[in-house]
């Protein structure tokens, strides 16, 4: 039942109440196209209200009294009553005074033509919803502050509530809105709603005129009242040219001072600045030996430099000096040429005795070549010798042991002051041959007897005499082991010598110990016999005795080769121990100087 009533009221209201209250902003604008209708109702202070209407197109109803207003409150048992007061001064206005005004109650008004008994318009509302408060009064402003630049300022605007509104009692609680604009501008700046009676405005420009106005409305309602009268706000700009003058002067002087300071700084620190800005181009630094060092001749530093630069292998440098020499020998081009010449001379084909004379020529380490297992077997060598009757045992050239021939560990080595250097077909092999002392025989004690004929020098620093010797031994059989040709030559020489054995013995006279009387290693042969392994030696000693070669007597624990130790000499030479020995001056251990050897030559 209640809902049906509600719905009916809704529809009724929709039909009738649209024009009046929904369009609040269209008050006081009569619609000429319509018939008689209410143009609006307003209350100023929530205690009274007025309503206006218009006849519209019905001009015949314009005379007063043609249209009448009836109202009804939503109280129970209420009926339509006529407007209590038709305002005389204003046309078509109905005024409800305090006695007829009730808030929180709905009013419905009707515009009727009594004569025709037609209701042209109806509207329903509550009074508090049609309240438009009066504008506030007493609007004024005070200057709050001015910015430092003098371009902006803030003001405080004050006002008073409208006198008609009973704010003190709490009958109406108002909210205010302040608006301002630059004078003669069209756009108003709106500030937020304010419950109090004052508000600050910030950021106004000096030398500009502003208009400020204020209006109010009831709290929680939407109807603003009229605007108050505008007030003009203007703050003149204080001319502050004096303040700008010192600043510019200060700026100018400051700039000058800074420039002067800079100039002074530059001049005082000229050198340093030059270095900083124009750094000297560094000279190219080549890594390597400082030429100054070489000029000064400080070998220690040079050596340290060189050694630090890893040009020499220290190990080899200290441990194997003879290796170095050999290396130097290897590097000597002259030797190479001569070795090749020797090769040609001898007509030795490497291939023929390759398996015998397969000496490593590419080995730059003499030691390696010494211990080269590819050193030909002396037995093989013996086979090469013509006329070899298989007397390998006594073959002077053949060592009893097939082990490494250049056994530097031989305790008893033939002592030969002058040991021939057998030219090798290849220089390295020739060089390597310096180490090799052919083992001619074994001592009962187990020592290996090295034949002096093939005995090679070692530890000799005969670099300068090597060339000489090479020339001398050009025709010497290559290799510690005589080649075929050499053997042939040797054998040819044999008949000249007493017996092949002896010839062999004489050949490596010094080498053979037990078999020949003369073949005493270490002892110089008879004067007729030359200690050099020369094919032409028996007929004529072509080559003078080489003074700078010696026999490797011993090898120290430190891998140093001991040559001609004075202690062993007397034991080894039974032949003529005193023949040469006394004639032999004391010599430095292991070394034979060329001068010394020159003395020894018979």
């Amino acid at each position, binding site marked *: 039942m209640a809902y049906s009533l509600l719905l009916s*009221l809704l529809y009724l209201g929709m039909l009738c109440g649209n024009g009046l209250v*929904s369009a609040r902003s269209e008050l006081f604008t009569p619609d000429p196209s319509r018939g008689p209708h209410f143009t609006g109702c307003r209350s100023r202070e929530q205690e009274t209200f007025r309503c206006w209407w218009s006849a519209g197109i019905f001009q015949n109803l314009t005379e007063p009294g043609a249209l009448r207003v009836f109202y009804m409150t939503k109280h129970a048992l209420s009926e339509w009553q006529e407007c209590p007061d038709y305002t005389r001064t204003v046309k078509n206005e109905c005024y409800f005074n305090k006695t007829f005004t*009730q808030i929180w109650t709905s009013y419905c008004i009707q515009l009727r033509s009594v004569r025709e008994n037609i209701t042209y318009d109806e509207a329903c*509302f509550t009074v508090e919803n*049609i309240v438009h408060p009066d504008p506030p009064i007493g609007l004024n402003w005070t200057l709050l502050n001015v910015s430092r630049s003098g371009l902006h300022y803030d003001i405080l605007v004050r006002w008073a509530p409208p006198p008609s509104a*009973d704010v003190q009692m*709490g*009958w109406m*609680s108002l909210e205010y809105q302040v608006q301002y604009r630059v004078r003669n501008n069209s756009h108003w700046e709106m500030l937020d709603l304010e419950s109090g009676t004052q508000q600050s405005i910030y950021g106004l420009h000096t030398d500009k005129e502003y208009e400020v106005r204020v209006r109010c409305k009831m709290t*929680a309602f939407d109807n603003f009242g009229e605007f108050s009268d505008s007030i003009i706000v203007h703050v003149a700009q204080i001319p502050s040219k004096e303040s700008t003058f010192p600043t510019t002067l200060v700026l100018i002087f400051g700039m000058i001072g800074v420039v002067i300071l800079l100039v002074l700084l530059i001049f005082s620190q000229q050198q340093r600045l030059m270095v900083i800005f124009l750094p000297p181009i560094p000279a190219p630094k080549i890594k390597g030996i400082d030429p100054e060092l070489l000029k000064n001749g400080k070998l220690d530093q040079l050596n340290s430099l060189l050694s630090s630069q890893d040009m020499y292998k220290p190990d080899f440098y200290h441990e194997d000096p003879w290796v170095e020499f050999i290396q130097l020998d290897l590097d000597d081009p002259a030797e190479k040429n001569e070795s090749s010449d020797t090769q040609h001379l001898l007509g030795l084909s490497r291939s023929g005795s390759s398996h015998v004379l397969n000496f490593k020529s590419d080995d730059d380490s003499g030691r390696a070549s010494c211990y080269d297992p590819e050193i030909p077997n002396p037995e093989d060598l013996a086979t090469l010798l013509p006329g070899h009757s298989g007397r390998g045992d006594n073959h002077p050239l053949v060592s009893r042991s097939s082990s490494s021939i250049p056994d530097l560990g031989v305790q008893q080595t033939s002592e030969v002051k002058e040991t021939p250097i057998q030219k090798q077909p290849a220089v390295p092999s020739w060089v390597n041959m310096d180490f090799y002392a052919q083992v001619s025989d074994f001592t009962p004690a187990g020592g290996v007897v090295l034949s002096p004929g093939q005995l090679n020098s070692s530890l000799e620093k005969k670099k300068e005499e090597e060339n000489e010797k090479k020339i001398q031994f050009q025709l010497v059989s290559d290799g510690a082991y005589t080649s075929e040709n050499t053997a042939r030559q040797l054998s040819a020489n044999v008949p000249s010598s007493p017996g092949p054995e002896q010839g062999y013995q004489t050949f490596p006279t010094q080498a053979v110990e037990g078999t020949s009387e003369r073949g005493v290693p270490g002892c110089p042969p008879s004067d007729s016999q030359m200690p050099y392994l020369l094919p032409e030696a028996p007929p004529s000693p072509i080559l003078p005795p080489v003074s700078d070669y010696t026999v490797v007597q011993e090898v120290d624990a430190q891998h140093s080769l001991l040559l001609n130790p004075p202690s062993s000499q007397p034991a080894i030479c039974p032949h003529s121990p005193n023949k040469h020995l006394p004639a032999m001056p004391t010599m430095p251990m292991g070394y034979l100087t060329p001068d010394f050897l020159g003395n020894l030559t018979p």
Partner: protein
Amino acid sequence: MNRPKVLQAWLWCVSLWPCWLPHAVPLDCKDETGSFTQCTSISQEKLLDRVIQHAELIYRVSEESCTLFEDMFIPYPLHYLRNQGGNLCHSKPFPIPGSKSEIQQISDKWLLHSVLMLVQSWMEPLIYLQTTLNRYDDAPDALLNKTKWVSDKLLSLEQGVLVLIRKMLDEGILTTSSIFEHTLTPYNEQSPEMLESILRDYNLLICFKKDAHKIETFLKLLKCRQSNKLSCLSY
């Protein structure tokens, strides 16, 4: 001879016992932890200010809720309903005058009691409103939050008014339950029609806003009377 006198005196004291009760038993206040402690005393003026603040806030929030609901659910042609102030707001046990003159003649006691009655009459409808709003699919959260907030504030407002009544009127009201009959019976009914339900809720919100305005007005009038009687009664 003494016995009847003593008995009389004793009876007299017993009969006046209910009058002592509100003074003897102080009101228990709940502090932050939830335990009941004796309420801290507050001046009447301050209490009235606080109550007025509550009422103002409730009134503003009610207006905002009404606007929110209107924007969301009410078609524009029906917006005029708001101006009509609610057609079928539930009636009160006693009529409240609407004119300023009449209201000015209302006594303080009547004012306070009216306020209390209004506050109490809206407690249940607001709870109902919350449930209905939750049923809508696209009800804005702000609206739901505001409705809930108002329900909570209403309770505290009721308490404040009770204290005021006790202080200002020296009355003790023990019962705080709502004793009003709600004319809008279908609070518990299911309303299948969407438009009907929406309109009903809209009407409820409008009525609540009106009553909140009443509460605020009365309390402000009361305050005015407390500070300066002459200006408030002037006409």
